């Protein structure tokens, strides 16, 4: 389950533990180590991306981004993410609902299967779809009879992206649903609510931040996916290249400034995702924490409420 950080972990309040505190010197050493590592492996490369992208000036940067092939790659990336994310949103919420609310045989198998895309190498995942839908694959003859192209075409890219990003929403929503239990849903049921009313008025408000968090992660991965998409794409310029593939093509042809200009788009998406992620985590923490009014602040508020 690489790469999935449960957002509930981020919801825990900071706790002071004086007894666990290290000596001052060791603490500074650890902080310096962590910061140095971060600078070397994250900030430096990120800086290089933007510096190289702007090496030939803003004009060259704009030209590289406005190149028809690049624009087509951006369009394809948006299309793939635009289809994969909503699909995984629906699948993910449905799967999480099923697993957390019902007891059935095969439940643990389903939980394991959801993690499958994370445990399989993306390249292997891409190859699986080539073997299924490729010209000489299982469904190859059928597809060519119907004149449907999946591999080396847009549908293949969408399918591969969907497969790779499937666990992100499901896992996130599942952990939130399991943490919250079903008591409120049962209470709503005894009060006469229908299944849809329960989902819309009770479950959805409870899980909305988890869902949004999952969608953000899912979208980031969908836009940045390289391995599986590379296998099924066929690298047809201006047709089946996504942003990461376009970066590879430009780099392979020694258009360094252009390659980094396009790469900087992905870096911007990543930075934007990071900010959004933090905002969502902060929002969900606020909604999870009891309002600090439970004690002394309440009477004051009540008095104010009564006065107005």
């Amino acid at each position, binding site marked *: 389950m690489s790469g999935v950080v449960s957002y509930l972990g981020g919801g825990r309040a900071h706790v002071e533990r004086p007894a666990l505190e290290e000596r001052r010197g060791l603490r500074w050493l650890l902080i310096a180590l962590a910061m140095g590592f971060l600078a070397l492996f994250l900030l430096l490369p990120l800086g290089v991306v933007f510096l190289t992208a702007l090496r030939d000036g803003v004009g060259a940067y704009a030209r590289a981004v406005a190149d028809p092939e690049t624009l087509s790659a951006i369009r394809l990336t948006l299309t793939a993410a635009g289809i994969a994310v909503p699909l995984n949103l629906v699948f993910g919420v449905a799967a999480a609902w099923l697993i957390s609310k019902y007891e059935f045989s095969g439940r643990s198998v389903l939980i394991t299967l959801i993690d499958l895309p994370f445990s399989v190498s993306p390249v292997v995942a891409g190859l699986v779809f080539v073997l299924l839908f490729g010209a000489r694959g299982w469904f190859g003859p059928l597809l060519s009879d119907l004149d449907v192209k999946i591999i080396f075409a847009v549908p293949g890219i969408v399918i591969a992206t969907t497969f790779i990003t499937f666990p992100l929403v499901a896992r996130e929503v599942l952990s939130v649903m399991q943490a919250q239990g079903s*008591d409120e849903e049962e209470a709503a049921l005894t009060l006469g609510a229908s299944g849809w009313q329960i989902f819309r008025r009770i479950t959805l408000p409870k899980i909305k931040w988890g869902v949004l968090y999952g969608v953000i992660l899912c979208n980031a991965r969908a836009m940045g996916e390289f391995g599986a998409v590379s296998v099924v794409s066929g690298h047809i310029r201006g047709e089946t290249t996504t942003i990461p593939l376009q970066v590879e093509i430009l780099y392979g042809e020694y258009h360094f400034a252009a390659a980094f200009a396009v790469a900087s788009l992905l870096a911007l998406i990543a930075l934007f995702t990071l900010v959004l992620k933090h905002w969502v985590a902060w929002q969900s923490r606020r909604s999870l924490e009891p309002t600090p009014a439970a004690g002394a602040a309440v009477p004051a508020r009540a008095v104010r409420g009564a006065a107005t």
Partner: protein
Amino acid sequence: MSVRVEAMCKRFGLRKEVVGVDQVSFTAPEHRITSLLGPSGSGKSTLLRLVAGLEVPDSGKVEIHGEDVTRTPVRERRVGFVFQNYALFRHMTVFDNVAFGLSVRRAPKSEIQGRVERLLSLVQLGGYERRFPDQLSGGQRQRIALARALATEPRVLLLDEPFGALDARVRVELREWLRSMHEQTHVTTLLVTHDQEEALELSEHVVLLADGQIQQAGSPSELYENPRSGFVASFLGGAKVLTGSVAQGKASFGPIGLSTAVDLADGARVEAFVRPHDVRLEKVSVAQLGTELDGSPGASGADSAPRSTEPGAREALVERLVKVGSYVKLSVLLPGGDRLNVQMPRHEVEERGIAQGDRVLLEVRNVKVSPAIDYVI
């Protein structure tokens, strides 16, 4: 609007290996509070969830006011359910919580407004409409949960250990409050509890469960005064079960020096249920002590004759003595090795000068004697 449960069976687990309830039948009388009482794991909560429809029975029948609702979905059963952990909708205000049942039924706004106001004043939380559940204390939350359950005018109110998560003082307060609220509403109520005091105090009918089966059902005084088994006697009132045998038409229990005339054949095994507060202790006087200095109570044996001049009294050793407010809890070691819990008013203990390690004489009143039945705890 009585509730009838007939031959209810429910097992859990993928292979149905865990017994929830087993062949349970009982009737909860109309307009009354009926307690489902039992230790944890006795199946009482499962039984309540079966009545609500939150669990599907393997076999058996549920009737509400004569109507078979076994196959009726939860939301059409018109039951009010209150959970131990409140299960309030935490993203909704108190008003929206109480109004939920009405708004999903699309009741008119004005009606909802009026009903919620009435209910909040019934649970003494008028003016709290705009608060969120997180801003309320545990007792207040549970009262809101009750108001929410009552909003839809349920035919039956089902309470699943409603005071279980609250501290002792609030629990006693809410118990009083629930009783007075029931006097106003008269809703047929099923109350699940493991607290015998709660059951005896609140309900007019008690169903005592253990291991998924009913041990005894009846009025509180019936269960208390005529326990059908040692389990019932020890669960209600914490009685100690002593076994004895019948000889010449008399049941005798050596350790407490008790013998009672019974209508049983010689050699039959009998049980005596002794409650902690039915035992009085008297300090052994110095004169009596002198004759007994050699033998410890444990070694004196169950078959030797009572040393006391009083009939029905025997000697024991005070092992432990704890003062709990107005009364004193003692644990005494009987000759023969049995231990008996005793509860005495504090002033009596102090007047008699009883202390830990003292030799005492036992005097037992109100002992229930019945033929021994094999029961499973």
